[in-house]
């Protein structure tokens, strides 16, 4: 089912949470709404679900205007951040709930067969008569997903699906959710504040800030060409160096580097930790090492460049660097935004 948001607005009391957001989600896609807290991502998800009504604009499911359809008739599967499993029902009863209260009557054996099928899908065979209080967080998450899928939703919506889980469980569940999505082909929209999660899992990433979409695209598009300093910083570790551009040359303090840009005047140069090369001597921007952090895959160096700007970059694990050392930095790639 294709979902289309057209100029959707939501205001809480005096606070405008969502400012005219328009978005197209193709049928069968897995899309992430990514943003910091307060960016309106959960509000958008809840409006798509019908748990919140839009104050303006329209939401279409396929060609149907779903803006005013109440949640119980909208045919969405919603997975809540803290799962919202019914604590007094067993795992099997939780999964069967939607089928039991549905207007389409199903026989008992029919429901039981479907519950077994879903338990197998989420790999929880044998836990059917446990209560939610008796299973782990990751298992609860999978019960919540099975429960949402039981009613054959047209759209699957997940609110911070892995937010409350350990890092390891998270990674496994992420891969597993992708597999289930590919198997069922159901249009899926999920909310997260974790960039890694969004980039790993989604076909398309929608980045939000203060109730507006700031950029959307495939993970490759948003990673390779962040369209603003906000996106650059939000997607991962980034260094900022202030500079001035004149005639294709950027002046960083005393140092001059080539700046392939049409911008002129004061700019900010953004660098990922992997975007610079470190050399003990030679050409480049002089920098003093403040601290070295050892990590499993390499060494992270905290340094100060001329003028006091702090910078973080990565060097190979075997590189000998120590604090107090002075060396030169050369920029391999960078992105420039007007200051």
């Amino acid at each position: 089912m294709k979902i289309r948001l057209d100029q959707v607005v939501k205001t809480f009391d005096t606070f405008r949470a969502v400012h005219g957001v328009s978005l197209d989600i193709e049928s069968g896609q897995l899309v992430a709404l990514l943003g910091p807290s307060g960016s309106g991502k959960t509000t958008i998800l809840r409006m798509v679900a019908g748990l919140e009504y839009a104050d303006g604009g329209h939401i279409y499911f396929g060609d149907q205007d779903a803006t005013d359809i109440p949640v119980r008739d909208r045919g969405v599967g919603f997975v809540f951040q803290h799962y919202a499993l019914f604590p007094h029902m067993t795992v099997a009863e939780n999964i069967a709930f939607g089928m039991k209260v549905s207007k389409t009557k199903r026989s008992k054996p029919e429901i039981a067969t479907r519950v077994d099928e879903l338990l197998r899908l989420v790999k929880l065979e044998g836990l059917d008569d446990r209560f939610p209080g008796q299973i782990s967080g990751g298992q609860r998450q999978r019960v919540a997903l099975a429960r949402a899928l039981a009613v054959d939703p047209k759209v699957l919506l997940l609110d911070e699906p892995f937010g409350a889980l350990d890092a390891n469980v998270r990674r496994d569940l992420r891969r597993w959710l992708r597999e289930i999505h590919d198997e069922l082909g159901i249009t899926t929209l999920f909310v997260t504040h974790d960039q890694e999660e969004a980039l790993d899992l989604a076909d398309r990433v929608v980045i939000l800030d203060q109730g507006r979409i700031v950029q959307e695209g495939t993970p490759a598009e948003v990673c390779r060409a962040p369209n603003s300093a906000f996106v650059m910083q939000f997607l991962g570790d980034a260094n900022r160096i202030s500079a001035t551009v004149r005639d294709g040359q950027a002046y960083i303090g005393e140092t001059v580097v080539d700046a392939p840009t049409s911008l002129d005047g004061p700019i900010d140069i953004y660098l990922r930790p992997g975007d610079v090369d470190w050399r003990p001597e030679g050409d480049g921007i002089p920098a003093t090492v403040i601290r070295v952090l050892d990590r499993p895959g390499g060494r992270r160096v905290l340094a100060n460049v001329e003028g006091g700007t702090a910078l973080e970059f990565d060097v190979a694990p075997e590189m000998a660097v120590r604090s107090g050392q002075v060396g030169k930095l050369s920029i391999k790639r960078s992105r420039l935004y007007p200051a």
Partner: protein
Amino acid sequence: MKRNVLPGLPLSLGITLFYVGLIVVLPLAALVFKAASLGPAEYWAIVSSPRAVASYRVTVLSALVATAFNLVFGLALAWVLVRYRFPGRRIVDAIVDLPFALPTAVAGIALTTLFASNGWFGSLLAPLGIKVAYTPLGIMVAMCFTSLPFIVRTVQPVLEDLDPALEEAAQSLGGSDRAIFLRVILPLLMPALLAGLSLSFARSLGEFGAIIFIAGNQPMETEITALLAFIRLEEYDYQAAAAIASVLLITAFLMLAATNLLQARALRYTARS
């Protein structure tokens, strides 16, 4: 051994058991002891006398009706207090406790004045042929008044802890309001409702002060069991008073045991494997 915050277990256990014994068990034991000094035949004659049986009937029936009324009204009141924000909410919240604080005799006199055939409510109900004061209906009204806070105060905290996401989840799964109430909300409130219900019923069985003013106290019709025990006491017939009181005691005990059992069943899901 794990260190506890409260002072040593033997000490705290000793103190609490001593007080339970002194304040609760000792008077009850005296009551049972007094009643037991009657022979079985004599005991049975007293507790099964027509006047006593009539008093059980009016007491238990009125308590059942009052509890049922409070169950519905108390749940609604707790719901409104928890789920809605309206001006005066805190005042209503405070008023709920008033029946606890008010001397029950004062409540009884106030209710009698209101419901007497020339009172504010009584004069309105009289043309409809409804008499409240000096009838079993009056007993129910007095019981409702004194036991309402129990249901509200037991259900309120549980409702406050009820995650609204549970209702949203049930809605997103297609549940109607009715289905959500019956299958999700009510089962989760059941332990608290049972606790409130048993307290409310037990209080109604034993209520005395508020009822004797409004009941009219006609033997065989509007005489409650507690009053009958009191009358025997006034006649210096301590054994008969104890015998009648023991029936109330046993009823209350059985009822509390039964609701505890039901509560444990309703809370099955919280048991860890």
